[in-house]
C-alpha cells in the first residue's frame, strides 16, 4: 500500500469523524445532559452549512449571495443561524410534553430539507451550492497537505468545543441540567427554572450541529439538499449511543467508532455487491449500525463510557 494515498485517506476519514464528533457533542449536550430528544439533527446541520456557504461563497447572479466573507465569519454565522433556528423551535416546542419535541424537530428537519430543495433563489435548489471556499486551498492545493491542514482545523475546533462543553457540563449550570433531568418538580422547588435551562441547552447544542455543517461544507466544497437527509440524524444518534451519552469523551469516541464501521461497511458493499444491488446494500449499512446499537444497549446500557455521579468539577471527592 502506498503511503501518500493511505495517509490522504486517513486524513479524509478523520476529518469526517471529527466533524461528526462536533455534531455528536451538540447532541450529547441535549440528550446526554438534558434529556432532550432532538431527532432533527440534520436540519440544524443544514442551516449551518447553508449559512456558511452563503456568507463565504463568491457572488452568484441568480442566487442570494455569496458575500465572499472570510471562512471564520462563515463558521460563526453558521452557529448564529442554527442558534436562532433552535431558539425559535425551542421556544415553541420545549413547553410541550417531551415526546412532542421529537415530533417537532423531526418535522422541522424535513421542512428545512424541503426548503433547501425548493428555495432556489437562496439555496440553489436541487443543485445546491458549489465552489464553497476551502480555507488555505490557494496556498496548499488540493492534495495531502490541504487535507492535513483541514484536519488540523477540525481537530482545533473539536478541541475548543470539547473544552467549552467540559467547562459547561462540569459546572453549576450542568448540575442544574442534571437535576432537571432527574426530577423536574424537585428542581423547580429548589428555584431552578427548567424551561430556561432546557432552552439554553437546546440552542447551544444546535449551534454545534450548525458548526459541524459548516465544517462539512468547507471541506467538501459543495452542498446539496441530499446531504442532509434523516440518515444523518440517525448516524449522529448512533455515535452518541454507542460511545455513551452523558460523557463528552463518549460522544467523540462514538463518532470515530461508528464512522469507521460505516466507512468500512460502505467500502465492502461497494466492492462486493454488483452495481444493481448497491442501493439495497446501503440499507444494509443502516441495519448493521442498528444491530450495533441494540448490542451496545444490551451489553452496556450507558454506552462504552458511562456517566459519573459528581457533576461539578468543584464538587469531586478529595
Amino acid at each position, binding site marked *: 500500500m502506498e503511503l501518500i494515498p493511505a495517509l490522504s485517506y486517513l486524513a479524509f476519514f478523520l476529518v469526517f469523524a471529527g466533524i461528526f464528533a462536533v455534531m455528536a457533542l451538540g447532541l450529547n449536550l441535549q440528550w446526554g445532559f438534558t434529556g432532550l430528544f432532538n431527532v432533527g439533527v440534520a436540519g440544524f446541520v443544514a442551516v449551518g452549512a447553508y449559512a456558511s456557504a452563503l456568507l463565504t461563497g463568491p457572488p452568484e447572479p441568480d442566487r442570494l449571495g455569496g458575500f465572499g466573507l472570510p471562512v471564520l465569519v462563515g463558521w460563526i454565522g453558521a452557529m448564529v443561524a442554527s442558534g436562532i433556528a433552535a431558539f425559535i423551535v425551542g421556544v415553541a416546542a420545549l413547553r410541550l410534553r417531551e415526546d412532542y419535541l421529537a415530533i417537532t424537530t423531526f418535522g422541522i428537519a424535513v421542512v428545512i430539507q424541503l426548503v433547501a430543495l425548493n428555495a432556489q433563489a437562496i439555496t440553489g435548489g436541487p443543485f445546491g451550492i458549489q465552489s464553497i471556499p476551502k480555507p488555505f486551498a490557494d496556498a496548499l492545493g488540493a492534495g495531502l497537505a490541504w487535507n492535513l491542514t483541514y484536519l488540523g482545523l477540525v481537530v482545533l475546533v473539536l478541541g475548543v468545543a470539547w473544552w*467549552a462543553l467540559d*467547562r*459547561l457540563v462540569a*459546572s*453549576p*449550570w450542568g*448540575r*442544574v441540567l*442534571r*437535576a432537571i433531568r*432527574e*426530577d423536574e*418538580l*424537585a*428542581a*423547580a*422547588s*429548589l*428555584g*431552578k*427554572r*427548567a424551561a430556561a435551562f432546557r432552552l*439554553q441547552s437546546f440552542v*447551544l447544542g444546535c449551534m454545534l450541529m450548525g458548526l459541524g455543517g459548516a465544517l462539512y461544507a468547507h471541506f467538501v466544497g459543495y452542498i446539496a439538499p441530499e446531504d442532509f437527509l434523516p440518515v444523518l440524524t440517525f448516524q449522529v444518534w448512533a455515535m452518541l449511543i454507542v460511545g455513551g451519552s452523558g460523557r463528552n469523551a463518549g460522544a467523540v469516541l462514538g463518532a470515530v467508532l461508528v464512522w469507521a464501521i460505516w466507512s468500512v461497511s460502505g467500502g465492502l458493499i461497494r466492492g462486493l455487491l454488483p452495481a444493481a444491488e448497491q442501493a439495497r446494500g446501503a440499507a444494509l449499512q443502516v441495519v448493521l449500525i442498528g444491530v450495533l446499537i441494540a448490542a451496545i444497549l444490551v451489553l452496556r446500557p450507558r454506552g462504552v463510557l458511562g*456517566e459519573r*455521579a*459528581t*457533576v*461539578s468539577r*468543584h*464538587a469531586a*471527592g478529595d
Partner: protein
Amino acid sequence: MAEGGGAGPILVAEGLAKAFGGPRVVDGVSFALQRGAITGLIGPNGAGKTTLFNLVAASLRPDAGALHLDGAPIHGLRPDQVFGLGLGRTFQIPRPFPAMTVLENVMLAPQHQQGERFWANWIRPGAVAAEEKRNRARAMHWLDFVGLARLAQEPARVLSGGQRKLLELARVLVAEPRLILLDEPGAGVAPPLLEIIMQKIVALNQAGTSFLIVEHNMDLIAALCRPVMVMAQGRLLMQGTPDEVRGDTRVIEAYLGIEAA
C-alpha cells in the same frame, strides 16, 4: 417593599381551594402565618395538608384563592419563583436527585449562583470556582448537621428513607429561606437525631426563620409549634396552642373519623 420585612404576617392565604376532579380536597382554606413563628399543621390522613403545601409552594395551581408572601402576591407564580422569593419546602415523600452525589444534591440549592449562567463558566471561571468552594463548605456544614457528611460523595440513591428526609432538610436549609414548609420532617427519623433536628429548628427560628410544619408526631408538635392549626376534610377546624388543640372535642372527633355535628 413598604410591606416587606414588616411586622405583619409572613404568609396570608385566602380561600384556597383545590379539587382533583372530585370533591374539594382543599376547601376554602384561609390563614395567616405569624412572622417568626413555628406554626404546626395537623390533621388525619387525607385531610389535605400536603395538598395545601403544594398550593402554597406553587407545585399545584389552586382552583381559587389568593396567597401573599410578605404582602406581595405569589399566587400564579411558578414554584421556582416562589422559592426565589424565600419560601422553601420539603416533600412528604422525599425527592432526592438519585444519580447525583449527596453533596451536590445540597450544593444545587443555594440561589443566584453565578455558575448557573453558562457563560460565566467560560469567562469567569475563577469567580465560579470560588463560589463553588463557598457553596461546598456551606453544604458540608448542613450535611454534617443532619449526620450525612460521611456519605457526601455517595450517589443519593444509596440513602435510606430516613436519610432521604434528612437530605431534603439539608437541601432546603442551605438556601436559607425566610419561610420553610416541612412536610412530616420527623417521619422515619430516629429519635436521637430528631431531637437534634428539633433543637436546630428552634435555633433557626430564633435567628428569624418562620416555619410551617406538618407532623403526626404530637410530641414534636407540642415541643415546637405555637400555634397549631387543625385540618380535616379540606377545611381548617381550629387553631390554638398544642394543649388547646389536644383537648378540643372537634379535633378528637375528626381524628376518630366521627362526623362533626
